[in-house]
């Protein structure tokens, strides 16, 4: 097929930008239904306390107040379900009620909802609620919760361990360790992070009494999943009685995908007062009401032979889940364990994963969900192995990589990598980063009083597994096209990327192809965005639909032009008789008498048979000022295998953004709870996010090996940047500190203070 102007592979500018760049984006808070009322959620100031609401009368009587809801008003509602229990894991699922009953379990736990004519009135009335707390001892974080005699988060979860599961072959692994020439061990903490999308969450609930239909408008990662859970499990109504809409979304990164308490709350409130109810989180609320990310403590060991081959690996993962089980919380650390061996061919493997409750904000999937944690542990471990074996880090990697010849490769964690050339990506990245010239740069830096370090991270991850997408492409009467897809753009640019697929087959400019997403009525089914699935699954589905539509339209054109279908070709937004100027435009086809609705629309489905496995190598170079402990990222090079590139601009955008988050986690982001479970880093002033001068220029290139499990060869690219980056940065930081002071370990975030202390402890200052 010839290359279409607007089609697959082209660096098209984005269709949605015109909206965003002029302030016309419509995010949930920009929508103000007529007669809207405003909701305020009263939240717990305690990490763990028994509480009583003795009086609501004063709040109810306050000016402007329309409704006060507490747990006792919500007995008819279901609780928030957890859908992410790994197969074979048997565990208690503690109640996650819509409003806390009797006991609050983390700072920010929702205690009451107040609805008033204005937000200020709702907030003031909330202060009039008489809530008496008698505080209880709190387990603040994984380590505290695992201590002997720690306060219990849930009575039926002794020791706060939610599950304890394993994977791999313990006996074989122990045997391999017993005969190893060398065993290398590391302990790493994967710091808890806060998503901090720039758009905080918001929700608008409406209720149409005549039709008995609820409408929820919220910035989500997919309307259908939320509809199902909120309708069936919480409100206990028919799914079709709930219409969920998602307008533009100001970033999601995983944690905007879950059902949160405020969604059923605004719906319940809207029904009770007969008016729309709007709730918008402020930034401080974001820090305590949205699921957080990462939060693992892991011990890992590698057994090596004398040549540096990896004989066996063991990991022991503690995954913090906070006080309540958010949607996929138990699944995330397990998913990490299932990717623990990464790009390496390891003799045997044994992994153990426990999830741990504590009196802290819930934790759930955040960009990469389990895979960044796995890559971080593994790549730190591999670097430690290289140091102990006195082997160059690139050599020990190359020696142990799964080779293309071994593909398809069955991992010891029951996965099948279909294709991938890990050594090829590493080699290309080393060349890009001028790895060979590093020692010269390090010398120059040291003359200037700086420590320079370089770090490699070779990662593989799994994307786009599980559910499929069914959607459609249709020709509209005006000759434009309409796609209906059940994924959800959170800023990735699906309006553009998807239109490119359709344009590829129908050869029309992107402006003439519209996307409907984020509407559970207009798009009947869908599975949203997450796990880097939108492009590999959505685009594959649209390819199928486009091919079907092309056929249907050619059939119609063949009638109109009275020419055999085989003589027709698509060119410049029309179907023409090949080699002539006889043609019929899409508008004319749509208007032709035989053009029934069915013939103008093609529906297709794509269900991925297996995950796809993007992979690659990141190389980061840093310079540390030993006087202050400040780290600057001075070089960043990476080579990724995404199977196939739909739009290089959008792809680079995803990669850059992901790296930004990884660098943020590695160098500055940190969620700190004090001993009482108070969140200390609860504002943008106290929780450091990367700003423009923290992030380097990236030198990024693809070295694609098409996926065999995706019809277009695509592998998901939304999370890869965040997966390769934090280990690359930390390996570089530790490399610099090792060269300077023999330091071999440091936990994220590598803040100036922490580096300063590490150097001091290593005797680096007089």
């Amino acid at each position: 097929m010839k290359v279409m102007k607007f089609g697959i592979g082209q660096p098209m500018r984005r269709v949605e930008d015109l909206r965003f760049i002029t302030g016309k984006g419509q995010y949930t808070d920009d929508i103000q239904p007529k007669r809207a009322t405003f909701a305020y959620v009263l939240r717990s100031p305690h990490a763990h306390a028994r509480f009583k609401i003795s009086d609501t009368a004063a709040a109810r009587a306050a000016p402007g107040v329309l409704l006060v809801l507490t747990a006792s008003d919500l007995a008819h509602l279901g609780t928030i379900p957890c859908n992410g229990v790994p197969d074979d894991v048997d565990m208690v699922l503690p109640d996650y009620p819509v409003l806390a009953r009797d006991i609050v379990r983390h700072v920010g736990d929702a205690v009451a909802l107040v609805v008033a004519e204005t937000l200020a009135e709702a907030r003031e009335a909330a202060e009039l609620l008489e809530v008496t707390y008698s505080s209880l001892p709190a387990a603040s974080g994984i380590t505290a919760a695992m201590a002997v005699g720690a306060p219990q988060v849930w009575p039926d979860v002794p020791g706060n361990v939610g599950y304890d599961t394993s994977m791999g072959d313990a006996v074989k692994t122990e045997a391999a360790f017993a005969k190893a020439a060398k065993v290398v061990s590391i302990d790493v903490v994967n710091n808890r992070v806060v998503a901090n999308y720039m758009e905080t969450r918001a929700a608008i609930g409406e209720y149409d009494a005549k039709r008995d239909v609820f409408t929820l408008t919220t910035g989500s990662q997919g309307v259908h999943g939320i509809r199902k859970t909120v309708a069936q499990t919480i409100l206990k109504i028919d799914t079709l009685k709930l219409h969920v809409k998602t307008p533009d979304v100001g970033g999601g990164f995983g944690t905007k995908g879950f059902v949160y308490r405020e969604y059923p709350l605004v719906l319940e409130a809207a029904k009770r007062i007969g008016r729309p109810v709007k709730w918008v989180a402020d930034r401080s609320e974001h820090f305590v009401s949205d699921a957080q990310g990462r939060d693992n403590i892991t011990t890992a060991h590698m057994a090596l032979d004398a040549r540096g081959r990896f004989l066996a690996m063991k990991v022991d993962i503690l995954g913090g889940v906070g006080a309540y089980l958010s949607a996929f919380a138990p699944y995330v650390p397990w998913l990490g364990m299932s990717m623990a061996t990464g790009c390496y061919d390891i003799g045997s493997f044994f992994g153990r994963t426990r999830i741990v409750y504590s009196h802290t904000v819930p934790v759930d999937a955040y960009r990469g969900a389990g895979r960044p944690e796995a890559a971080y542990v593994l790549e730190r471990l591999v670097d430690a192995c290289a140091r102990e074996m006195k082997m160059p880090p690139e050599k020990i990697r190359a020696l142990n990589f799964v080779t293309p010849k071994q593909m398809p490769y069955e991992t010891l964690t029951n996965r099948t990598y279909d294709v991938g050339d890990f050594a090829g990506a590493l080699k290309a990245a080393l060349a890009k980063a001028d790895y060979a010239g590093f020692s010269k740069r390090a010398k120059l830096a040291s003359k200037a009083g700086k420590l320079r370090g370089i770090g490699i991270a070779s990662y593989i991850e799994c994307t786009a597994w599980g559910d499929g997408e069914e959607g459609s492409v249709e020709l509209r009467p005006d000759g434009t096209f309409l796609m209906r897809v059940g994924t959800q753009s959170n800023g990735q640019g699906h309006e553009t990327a998807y239109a490119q697929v359709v344009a590829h087959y129908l050869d029309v400019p992107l402006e003439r192809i519209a996307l409907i997403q984020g509407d559970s009525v207009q798009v009947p089914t869908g599975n949203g965005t997450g796990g880097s699935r939108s492009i590999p699954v959505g685009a594959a589905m649209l390819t199928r639909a486009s091919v079907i539509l092309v056929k249907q339209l050619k059939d119609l054109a063949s009638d109109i032009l009275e020419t055999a279908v085989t003589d027709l070709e698509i060119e410049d937004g029309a179907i023409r008789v090949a080699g002539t100027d006889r043609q019929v435009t899409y508008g004319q086809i749509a208007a032709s008498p035989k053009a029934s609705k069915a013939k103008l629309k093609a529906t297709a489905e794509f269900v991925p048979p297996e995950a796809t496995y993007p992979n690659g190598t990141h190389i980061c170079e840093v310079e540390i000022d030993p006087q202050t402990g400040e780290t600057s990222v001075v070089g960043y090079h990476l080579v990724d295998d995404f199977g196939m590139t739909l739009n290089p601009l959008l792809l680079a955008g995803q990669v850059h953004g992901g790296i930004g988050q990884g660098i943020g986690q590695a160098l500055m982001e940190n969620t700190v709870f004090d001993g009482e479970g108070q969140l200390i880093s609860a504002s943008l002033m106290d929780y450091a996010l990367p700003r423009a001068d923290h992030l380097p220029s990236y030198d990024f290139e693809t070295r694609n090996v098409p996926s065999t499990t995706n019809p277009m060869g695509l592998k998901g690219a939304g999370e890869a940047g965040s997966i390769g980056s934090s280990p690359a940065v930390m390996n570089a930081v530790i490399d610099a500190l090792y060269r300077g002071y023999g330091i071999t370990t440091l936990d994220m975030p590598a803040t100036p203070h922490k580096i300063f202390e590490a150097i001091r402890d290593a005797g680096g200052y007089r």
Partner: protein
Amino acid sequence: MRSILRFYLGDTLHEIDRCGHTQTLLDWLRLKQRQCGTKEGCNEGDCGACTVVVGRLEAGKLVYRAINSCIVFLATLDGCHILTVENLKTADTLHPVQQAMVNLHATQCGFCTPGIVMSLLALWLNENHPTVARIEDVLAGNLCRCTGYRPIVDAALSLYRDDDRESDPVLINASAIAGKLAAMQDQQTLHLSDPEGVFFAPANLDDLASLYSSHPEATLVAGSTDVGLWVTKGMQRLNPIISLVRVEDLKSVHETEAGFTFGAMVSLNTVYERLGAMHPHIRELLRRFGSEQVRNSGTIGGNIANGSPIGDLPPLLIALGASLTLRSGQTSRTIPLETFFINYKVQDRAPSEFVECITVPKLGTDEILNVSKISKRFDEDISALCGAFWLKMSGSTVSAARIAFGGMAATPKRAQLAEQELVGHIWSTEVADRAARALATDFAPLTDLRATKDYRSAVAGNLLRRFAVETLEVHVPTRVNQVGAHNG
């Protein structure tokens, strides 16, 4: 008195007789005007999603600056020209800044985008060929969680490739707007009231003085980068409010051979420009003060009068030997700045007395200055501690010294014992070490969110030692980013 607030939003004149006396510009735009292009990401000046560009007549000239609309009170924008992202596109043509952002794929989810467009617009209108470092500075007050920033920086750079500012629609319109704003200026005190309170904005110094004398309970508002947060985050009700924003006399800078006199309302960015020219450390301190937006709104008077123990200017100004002029009614008095700070939240300021100006001596050729700000991250962060050191030398002997710290005590404070260790001695690393040790007697710092007391004590001493190294062993690089390590 005038009780109608007047300003332009884009091309539209707004005349408002009723508005919440502490309503922010952001709330007014989003809630009252339903112009939702300007976003709220934090409501406390940290994220820049709410950035707008405000044009004001400064000494008769129309100057556009980016500010955070979430912490500025609408009523303080009397006589201004406000531009939001919605005002930039003309007919079918994107503004060059917008076009550059599209071309370079500098937006993803689009939520930070309006604020970023406005920050870059202000840069584009005011500066020729900024460096990458300068662009990053201007963007330090804008968070983006999606793009990794590079495409945004690239978009900014690309604007200057075919530098065609003459045809910029905002600049073409500027002289007409300047005329309109000039026509709106008057000498009447703006007086607005709503059920929650009263707002005054006197137009000159005498009116301010007499107004404050008759309302000594009033809260003065300068740039509102502190006061704005008391309202949006602290939920305080302030009544009445007297805004200083229209008092031209407080905005002047007088330069003599001996030094500068800054009116209380001189913006931090102007201080950056003028004082910064004197010494690179002053430049660095001010570059890292808040963000471009905060420096455009915030004032020198506000930073001093706020009396915060971690305000960034007081240590520097004390070290430089600045004096403060306070005025009440028709009476003024001038005091050494260091005596202004009495205790935590207590200053030497009588009811109805306001800060009129600050006089800062210039550095003599026999004087050495050294300033350090220590914070958790490099920019847009509040100091854990801030140290400023000034020495007068006679030959290699220290003949006078002023050492001032913020973050080490309840107020910005001089380290008198440490100073005594220096005066009369030959300036050396040993002497600096002695002085550093004396700091332990000068200060008993506290542990808080920003740093532990041990960290503060240790670092304070190290800053003094570094001072010695920096002045005595010039070739040792001692500062972050000093050797162009950035993005190398």
